[in-house]
């Protein structure tokens, strides 16, 4: 089965990139592709818990990420180095995403997929 890795590298609520990445993941899964998602660089901010909306936000990224398994997407990862560098210490992160600790783990993840899309 063809596999696709969606890499999400932008903060949520700072433009459409985070939403575009999630939309792509859902659409790919919906046609039967096996989809993995990696949050890296500033994308790790999407995993912070306790997000709240204001009138400028249509959808809470936190909730959309929680919905991924409903759309058959369960291979969800984040780059631990990015999280350590960019997020405040002791940040509560969505447990849906598993940490990848080494650069080689990330390289292996990329190698394991036929297609990669980066947002």
């Amino acid at each position, binding site marked *: 089965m063809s596999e*696709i890795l969606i890499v999400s590298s932008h903060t949520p609520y700072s433009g*459409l*990139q985070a939403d*575009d990445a999630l*939309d*792509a993941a859902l659409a790919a899964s919906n046609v039967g592709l096996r989809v993995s998602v990696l949050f890296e660089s500033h994308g790790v901010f999407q995993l912070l818990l306790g997000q709240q909306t204001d009138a400028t936000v249509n959808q809470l990224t936190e909730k959309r990420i929680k919905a991924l398994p409903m759309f058959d997407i369960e291979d969800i990862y984040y780059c631990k180095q990015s999280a350590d560098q960019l997020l405040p210490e002791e940040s509560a992160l969505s447990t849906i995403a598993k940490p990848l600790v080494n650069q080689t783990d990330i390289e292996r993840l990329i190698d394991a997929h*036929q297609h*990669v899309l*980066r947002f």
Partner: protein
Amino acid sequence: MKSFSLFVSSPPTLSHQCADALLFAKQVIQSGHQLRQVFFYSEAVTIAMTQHQANNSTFNLHKEWKEFAEEQALILKVCVTASLKRGVLGSHEAEYADQVSNLSTPFEQVGMADYFAVLKDEPDTISVQF
């Protein structure tokens, strides 16, 4: 002969990527490979807007893509969800919203499923993102 699926998602006015995508597309054809599909997403959907104006001496990305696609009898797929958010409307969407359409052939609004279905059904296609 290889099959290529192009995914164009870079902001057209912030880098050379969308022009590079066109150069790559032309190279695929010239090298005797198959350009299986071209799909525009994120900010790149604005390339489809009919009203792009440039004086004659300026490279016009919309016009260049349009002419290339017409030569190749290729449909340029534009993600409908990404388009709507950015004010790009084909005739069907324009009618629904009581707006004027600003997207026409060879550009065509499709769901993202269209792009991914090819990846699923044709495991040999090589996807390249710009």
